[in-house]
């Protein structure tokens, strides 16, 4: 955790300085509470505490070991990519297909085997969800702009 704390501290300080520069240019109000007051308090707080975090990490003798294996990293990246794919594709193929694909990918990552079981599971769940929320609770889901068959 020692290295991580130092890296996080530096990232937080750099980001805070970037936003602080913008906050310092906000207009002033005659009341003394400017649009920049609360953000400036936030950035000063983050910068000060991050410096303390870095100093503490440098002085710490026994850092807590942070485990992050290659396999875990792969699972995390695949999950995030699946979610990004869902957000990007939903406007083109609609909620039903996008959620089926997302469910399929996530169930594979979660360990559903064999793949056709994952397909059946994804279809059933996404159809049920679509019916429950779209038809019973009247949530208006994005529809496909591509000419795809849509059940409801």
């Amino acid at each position, binding site marked *: 955790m020692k290295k991580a704390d130092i890296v996080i501290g530096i990232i937080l300080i750099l980001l805070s300085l970037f936003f602080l520069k913008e906050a310092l240019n906000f207009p002033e109000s005659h009341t003394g509470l400017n649009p920049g007051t609360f953000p400036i308090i936030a950035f000063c707080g983050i910068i000060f505490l991050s410096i303390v*975090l870095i100093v503490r990490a440098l002085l710490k003798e026994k850092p807590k070991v942070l485990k992050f294996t290659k396999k875990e990293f792969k699972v995390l990246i695949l999950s995030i990519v699946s979610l990004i794919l869902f957000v990007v594709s939903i406007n083109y193929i609609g909620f039903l297909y996008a959620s089926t694909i997302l469910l399929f990918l996530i169930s594979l990552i979660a360990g559903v085997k064999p793949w056709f079981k994952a397909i059946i599971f994804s279809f059933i769940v996404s159809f049920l969800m679509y019916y429950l929320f779209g038809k019973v609770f009247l949530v208006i889901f994005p529809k496909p702009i591509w000419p795809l068959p849509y059940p409801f």
Partner: protein
Amino acid sequence: MEISLLEGFKLIFQPNMLFYLIAGTMVGIIVGAIPGLSASTGIILFLPIAYKMPAAEAFIVMLGIYGGSMFGGSIPAILIRTPGTPSAGATVLDGYPLVQKGKAGLALGTSAIASSIGSLLSTIALVIIAPQLAKMALKFGPPEFFALVVFGLTAIATVTGEDILKGFISAFIGLFLATIGLDPIMGYTRFSFGSLYLESGIPLLPVMIGVFAIAQVFRDLLGEEKGQIIERNVVRVIPPKEEMKGIILAALFGSLVGIIIGIIPGIGGSVATYVAYGQYKRISKKGKQFGEGVLEGIAVPEASNNATTSGALIPLLTLGVPGDIVTAVLLGILVLFGLRPGPLLFREQPEFINEIFASMFVIAFLILIFGLISAKYSPKLLTIPKKYLTPIVLIFCIIGAYSLNSSLYDVEIAILFGVLGYFMEKFGFSVTPLLISMILCPIAEGELGRTLLISRGDWSVLFTRPISLIFLVLSVVFVCYAFKGRKEQK
């Protein structure tokens, strides 16, 4: 006709009225249990049916949905770490650790009992002391609101997790995130970088869904919490006698906070839960164990969020001032039905007021009955193998984030904060201070701005008004007390 609770019970104990009350409460519990469907959404979804009903019947169904959803929100908060409603955010803190200990039934049972106590006590407050308390709340100006919110923010000192330094960094990040969007006084756009979405700020519910639920999905996919005990057959939902005293005391405290905060317009259930949780953590003997899975940690927020329901009805009915989003919707509905909320409603429609008073009592008992029944059966959700449950939870989260505003932007926010929440906890940063800051800081900024507008930039007004001064002094005392407690703990 005069205002009489007995008259109200006579009107309520008719088969059709009881049916509406039961149906409303059950729908409320289900709506609350579905992440993303809040009480206000449930009531709005019910509107097309309500138009076809007489005003009193429609209104009591809505009250049932309101009360039921406050309890219902705790079911997914406890079982899958997903607050069903924003008011159930604090319930996650002790609810989920209890599930991991194999005490899902007891956690849900405690939630049902505390919710019922909260509803019952706040209804008594509504009936007996409504006009007096509403008069007092009317005297609250921006300085008092600001001081009250500062008092709420002191809760951060007790929920920073193991690492107090990282907890405070998290709180400051929350403060920054809360300032994105329009400045409440001058209307100046901050940190939006030209995005119309960012101009309206970062929506709270998707953030909560992200940092609590989606982050949990990542942890489940990575198999980080293998030691979870699943209570397949719930044997016990009612807590043992020796724990009951503590739970009732915690529920009484939560109810009191919930009633007071419910009455004050514009604050609402989610603030009440965090304020009550933070303060009770300080005074309770089990305070140090809060967050690790204690039943009192569920009783406090659940009693307080249910207590805000009747509390919020006090200014709504007596002054026509809505206390939170739901009562704002209810206000609109009353007007639609041709009723005028305010002191005149008590004089012109006493039977309507009587029905509301009596039905709130019945709802408190219905929450207990349906709550205990659902406590027995809803943990069966967890018997679904995790490899199937995790994708289902993820899709629920996405729909929950989307359905509030039918906006994909909210889904993106939930996913982004899911990733952020996962990494924050991985690196030892508690996400709770971030959330408390995000909820309370915008209110604090708005109220401070209004205070300084009225006082023409004179800050001393915060210390010269007695109620404001009391809250500020209490805040300092509690922060010192929290730090002292931590030192002793070490």
